[in-house]
């Protein structure tokens, strides 16, 4: 039987391959496009719309979605973000389009982003300062407001600084108190008690002036307030120290809008989160992810390379190596949550618990290393990604020509010298390929981290100015977990939606940046191997 020519010539296969490629490309591009589009406009200022309803209500806010009303087929309804959570108890209201009598975009409407209770939408009335009251209609209002907000920021900064110093004064009291309580011998107890006494004395001596200053700062902060009027007529007093930014959105020109947009991105990337992560920035998560991947790389590369070198250069290639290779291949397919459970049992409870018993016995039962932390999370991910590094390194080692190995041996190099000076440099690009793949995989993992050290809100970064600077036992925040937390666990899911997409975009960007770094390094190594000087 004659086969159709288009089958015989492989035309069908070629079209099928092209179609598969096209679909794959479309999926990747589509993913990036959706995330970028939603995240890109997340921080763009929306106009503040004033709606008068048939029942007499007046609403001011941003229109977030327009959709068909499921209760009244054929009608449209709008989701309006009205903010003012402390007045209304909710951020969003549904407005049937039919109920809207009048719609305007008032130039005098203000958006006030607050440190607490979310956004406030309304009209500025006056500014209260110790020097007097400035009305919003006054031409000095803009300058006075800018000055008041600046003063508010300074006060918040000072308050935080004072609280940090007070906490630092109190920390030894807690530490020695716990030590005295958990002391195993009377002598130790006495020593801890003496230290506790000294710490208390130190605190009692130094704390009062700080406390006095704190009270003063708080009092001053209450003195500068912005009085606003909501669309419904209620008056609201916002302390200047509680304002992140206050802008008359509708009155802004294009330049000011772009400036607002960029300053929001800046805040998003480099500020701490607020309001249960639904507002503010993601800096701790960004930093935690990068540091965790970094630590993991330090663990996984030596482990993977040594394993690959043993398998490829030393092991004899019998049943044992075959079994190890099979085990590694299977390890790569184990669900990541299983690694999380292993990490919890082995690293956190096993290794960490032992470290606590041996080195931090005094602070027990409060665990130091015996609880999730960035070190255990990094090591768990290192185990998860070790097969990737092993396989890539082995490929690199196998690419070293036998002639090159023979050449080194014939020159009197020992086996180790050959490996160290010829084979490993040759295989370095393969090692880096493995590292790239491991980093890409690790940066996106969430499940194992939830068991080994990730938290919703970490009180401090794992790297700071307090000796020993790198705090491996600390819990940390992670972009992947942040997405899950903000998107599904936050009290205000709808308001946090733009944050979810923006965080996703940042996570993608981080993976891309880490990969580009490794690729650049690999390209440099390859060049060194092939053309230019060593």
């Amino acid at each position: 039987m004659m086969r159709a020519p288009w089958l015989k010539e492989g035309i069908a296969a070629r079209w099928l391959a092209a179609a598969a490629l096209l679909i794959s490309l479309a999926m990747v591009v589509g993913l990036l496009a959706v995330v970028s589009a939603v995240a890109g406009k997340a921080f763009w200022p929306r106009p503040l719309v004033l709606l008068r309803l048939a029942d007499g209500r007046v609403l001011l806010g941003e229109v977030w979605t327009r959709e068909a009303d499921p209760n009244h087929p054929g009608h449209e309804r709008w989701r309006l973000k009205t903010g003012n959570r402390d007045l209304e108890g909710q951020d969003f209201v549904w407005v049937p389009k039919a109920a809207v009598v009048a719609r305007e975009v008032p130039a005098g409407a203000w958006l006030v982003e607050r440190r607490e209770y979310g956004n406030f939408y309304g009209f500025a009335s006056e500014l209260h300062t110790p020097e007097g009251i400035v009305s919003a209609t006054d031409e000095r209002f803009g300058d006075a407001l800018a000055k008041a907000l600046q003063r508010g920021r300074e006060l918040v900064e000072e308050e935080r600084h004072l609280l940090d110093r007070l906490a630092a004064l109190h920390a030894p009291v807690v530490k020695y108190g716990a030590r005295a309580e958990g002391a195993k011998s009377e002598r130790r107890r006495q020593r801890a008690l003496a230290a506790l006494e000294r710490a208390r004395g130190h605190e009692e001596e130094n704390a009062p002036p700080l406390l006095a200053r704190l009270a003063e700062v708080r009092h001053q902060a209450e003195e500068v307030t912005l009085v606003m009027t909501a669309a419904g007529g209620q008056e609201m007093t916002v302390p200047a120290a509680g304002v992140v930014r206050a802008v008359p959105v509708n009155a802004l020109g294009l330049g000011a809008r772009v400036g607002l947009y960029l300053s929001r991105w800046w805040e998003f990337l480099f500020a701490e989160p607020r309001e249960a992560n639904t507002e503010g920035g993601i800096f701790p998560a960004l930093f935690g992810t990068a540091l965790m991947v970094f630590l993991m790389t330090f663990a996984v590369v030596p482990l993977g390379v040594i394993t690959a070198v043993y398998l490829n250069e030393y092991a004899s290639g019998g049943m044992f190596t075959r079994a190890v290779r099979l085990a590694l291949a299977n390890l790569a397919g184990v669900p990541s949550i299983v690694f999380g459970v292993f990490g919890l049992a082995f690293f956190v409870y096993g290794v960490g618990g032992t470290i606590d018993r041996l080195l931090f016995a005094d602070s027990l039962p409060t665990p130091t290393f015996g609880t999730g932390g960035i070190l255990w999370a990094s090591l768990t991910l290192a185990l998860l990604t070790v097969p990737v590094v092993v396989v890539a390194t082995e490929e690199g080692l196998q690419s070293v020509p036998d002639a090159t190995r023979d050449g080194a041996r014939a020159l009197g190099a020992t086996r180790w010298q050959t490996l160290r000076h010829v084979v490993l440099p040759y295989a370095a690009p393969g090692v880096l390929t493995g590292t790239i793949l491991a980093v890409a995989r690790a940066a996106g993992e969430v499940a194992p981290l939830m068991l080994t050290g990730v938290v919703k809100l970490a009180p401090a970064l794992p790297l700071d100015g307090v000796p020993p600077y790198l705090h491996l036992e600390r819990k940390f925040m992670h972009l992947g977990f942040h997405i899950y937390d903000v998107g599904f666990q936050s009290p205000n899911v709808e308001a946090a939606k733009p944050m979810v997409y923006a965080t996703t975009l940042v996570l993608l960007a981080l993976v891309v940046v880490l990969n580009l770094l490794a690729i650049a390094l690999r390209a440099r190594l390859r060049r060194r191997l092939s053309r230019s000087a060593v």
Partner: protein
Amino acid sequence: MTTGAAALRTRSLLAGFGSTAVLQAIDLTIPEKQITAFIGPSGCGKSTLLRCFNRMNDHLAGFFRYGEVLVHGRDAYDPALPLEELRSQVGMVFQKPNPFPQSIARNVSFGPRMAGVRDPAVLAELVEASLRRAQLWDEVKDRLHASAFQLSGGQQQRLCIARALASGPQILLLDEPASALDPIATAKLEETILELSREVTIVLVTHNLQQAARVAHRTAFLYLGKLIEEGETAAMFASPRERLTEEYLTGRFG
């Protein structure tokens, strides 16, 4: 029969892999500071014999050996003789140029560095001397720190010779060194080999009878693992003693 002292000598050398004997009782003496060529059809055992002199066969699976291999009168397989020392005395250059992914200078100084030489001045001197002996110095002196991969095939092969010379061997084993080179590079390489033979003993495995005739002072013909005939190249090529040698030289097989 031989001129000068023996550099290499085998006594009833029997060697092979697994259950196959590749060399069958070879008795051969190779004189000092001459070029000796091994010729013979593929699979006759030329390379295996060559690799017995610096024990490169040891790394291959299933290798076995009986009989003696003497390097300047000393047993090459003496357990008390470190492999690294033997190999610094008996250098080797392979079929295909195999420079390391390093600079030209570091390629040449590899052997001494592995042997523990650290002094940069000593190494630099060794690099220059070795490259001069391999007749490569003038071509690379301005780019010693460029990658060895930048060189042409012929230059790479002479670099490999310089690299072997840097360890200070008295004997150099060349395993079909010109098989991957074009005629011009081959001519240059042969010139280098001839020049070197004044100070170093050279053993050359070749498939190319003309090459053996051009450069080798002596020639050994191997067939099916046996040494058929050995002697002065000119005499052997003009009037071979054995019928097999004559048939091979006249191209009736091989």
